């Protein structure tokens, strides 16, 4: 990928260096290869009816904007100030104390002052002040305000597509300003002009067309699940027939489509299949609601709603009682923090109850979806599953809290409880890098494209650094997580910073240790590598 060696990459970063110019005087922004995603393709924007659909090339001087683009953005800010009280408050109350400055993984990894959350937000605040506050209108630059021109627009684009919406900064803000919300709005404004990225708009169009980001069609999904079941049979001797689009099933299972395609997510997917089979769960996959993630959430809230609603449409069509969700990150942010505001409580499903343990998932009363880690932890707590932990004895495990699940929905304990019950060797990374203080993978919110690799490796550095610590201290060789972007993004991050550490979902570990009824003596793990003690000499 043409990156410098790791030690060289980080050696030029100096977080204490004073910039030589005031931040407003540093335009135009330089689009450095490796630091930005490719622009959207017109056909993908057009497919979902996004504005200004045309092929957009970031480094072209002419962004082919509509003539009245400036008016569109200012009007867009106005509408959002009126619609979202949070946004209005976040634009006004920042006192620029700087508590957030060094909390952002992208600032730590690049030293670029505009990656400080305070300054990233200030890029938009300065425009807001100019057009919406008296002080900005009267005092202009002295009031922290600036005109919106093409260079400013390009700067907004560059830096709001360098934020992963992880919200670590908001944790340290004395006012609780949620910079992710500011990024979300900024991206909405850019979206009004067709200024999207290829890596985000492609999956959005795919999801709208096929039900998932990758564009996996029904027969492909069926064939993929069958392929996995063949491997499961080779490993366990047990034949599984996965239920697909089964009307009247009790539970609809939804997971990110990355688990159906990408290594190592596919092993997690095999894990789901094995777990549900072992339980005799009355559930179904859907080829229509075949995506838990929601890249629409990285374009506009309206698009996110359009993609999200298909899951409930499918739940209604199939007549299930409730929904079980797989290991995904932003899917849970959408579900936990947005769903009820968008749609209100769901009135046609039942309050989720585990058919195995009878546990009522009270917290899921309104939106009727339970996280697979909550579901599995409950099974373990009730002693339903039997494990041979020694099958995971070659693994020395640590757990990466996915930002959206930890900070976004407050789930810390369940995955840890599961891992400790299925693995003998578990070590935590340092306190200030886990749970609500977790460091981002560096690739979230649709930034996991190949062309932005240098920024990803820089942004992922704080996370990798904490992994390196436990790798060197305890010999950690496996980074477990519960997010499909993590499963896609962390392997290259580990290869770059901490070679020798592999990446897996949590359910893969569960299924590997789980003793299934009628299974043959296991020789291989889910990756078809020999289990510890079963290596061929």
């Amino acid at each position: 990928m043409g990156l410098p060696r790791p030690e060289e990459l980080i050696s030029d970063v100096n977080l204490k260096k004073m910039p030589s110019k005031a931040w407003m005087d540093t335009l135009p922004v330089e689009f450095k290869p490796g630091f930005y995603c490719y622009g959207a393709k017109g056909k993908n924007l057009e497919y979902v009816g996004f504005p200004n659909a045309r092929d957009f090339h970031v480094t072209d001087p002419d962004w082919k904007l509509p003539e009245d683009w400036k008016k569109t953005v200012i009007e867009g800010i106005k509408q959002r100030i009126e619609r979202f009280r949070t946004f209005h408050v976040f634009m006004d109350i920042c006192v620029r104390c700087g508590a957030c400055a060094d909390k952002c993984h992208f600032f730590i990894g690049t030293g670029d002052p505009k990656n400080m959350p305070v300054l990233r937000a200030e890029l938009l605040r300065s425009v807001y002040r100019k057009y919406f506050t008296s002080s900005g209108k009267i005092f202009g630059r002295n009031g922290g305000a600036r005109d919106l021109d093409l260079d400013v627009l390009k700067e907004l684009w560059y830096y709001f597509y360098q934020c992963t919406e992880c919200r670590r900064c908001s944790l340290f803000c004395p006012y609780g300003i949620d910079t992710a919300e500011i990024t979300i709005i900024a991206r909405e404004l850019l979206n009004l002009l067709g200024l999207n990225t290829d890596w985000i708009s492609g999956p959005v169009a795919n999801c709208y067309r096929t039900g998932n980001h990758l564009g996996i069609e029904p027969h492909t999904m069926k064939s993929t699940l069958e392929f996995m079941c063949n491997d499961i049979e080779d490993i366990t001797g047990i034949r599984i027939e996965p239920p697909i689009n089964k009307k009247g099933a009790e539970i609809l299972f939804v997971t990110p489509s990355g688990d159906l395609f990408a290594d190592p997510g596919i092993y997690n997917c095999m894990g789901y299949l094995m777990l549900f089979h072992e339980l005799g769960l009355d559930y179904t996959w859907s080829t229509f609601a075949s995506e838990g993630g929601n890249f629409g959430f990285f374009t506009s809230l309206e698009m996110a709603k359009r993609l999200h609603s298909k899951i409930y449409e499918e739940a209604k069509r199939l007549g299930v009682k409730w929904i079980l969700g797989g290991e995904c990150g932003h899917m849970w942010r959408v579900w936990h923090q947005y769903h009820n505001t968008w749609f209100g409580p769901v009135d046609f499903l039942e309050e989720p109850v585990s058919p195995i343990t009878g546990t009522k998932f009270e917290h899921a009363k309104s939106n009727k979806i339970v996280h697979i880690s909550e579901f599995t932890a409950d099974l373990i707590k009730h002693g339903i599953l039997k494990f041979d932990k020694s099958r995971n004895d070659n693994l020395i495990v640590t757990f990466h809290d996915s930002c959206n699940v930890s900070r976004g929905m407050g789930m810390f304990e369940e995955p840890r409880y599961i891992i400790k019950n299925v693995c003998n060797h578990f070590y935590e990374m340092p306190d200030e890098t886990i749970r609500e203080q977790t460091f981002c993978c560096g690739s979230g919110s649709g930034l996991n494209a190949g062309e932005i690799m240098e920024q990803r490796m820089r942004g992922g550095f704080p996370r990798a650094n904490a992994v390196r610590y436990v790798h060197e201290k305890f010999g950690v060789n496996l980074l477990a997580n519960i997010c499909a972007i993590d499963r896609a993004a962390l392997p290259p991050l580990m290869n770059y910073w901490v070679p020798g550490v592999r990446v897996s979902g949590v359910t893969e570990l569960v299924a590997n240790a789980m003793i299934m009824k009628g299974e043959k003596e296991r020789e291989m793990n889910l990756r078809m590598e020999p289990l510890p003690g079963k290596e061929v000499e």
Partner: protein
Amino acid sequence: MATIEFKGKQIELDEDGYIQNLDDWSPELAEFLAQGDGITLTEQHWEVINFLRDYYQKYQIAPMIKILVKEMAKAFGPDKGNTKYLYALFPDGPAKQACRYAGLPKPTGCV
């Protein structure tokens, strides 16, 4: 985005060199794209490219690597059904490089 001229026809490529219009593909174009990387396509390369194209026709997506490896092993034996062999043929990775020569779009999302 770039446009290349091939046999008197303008062919659009994306930033990573994938052809934009899948109908533009021809075996000669695959040879031409490979030559651009200093690779001459051999029979071994074509075994992989043809499998990818057949799979894509059937499933409208590139196969996951695991399926590629397993199917290669089934068709051509274990010597060819392993990632080491595939990487030796396509140093940038079979998912990227072989798909590019085969004229398949690159997968996007949580991958």
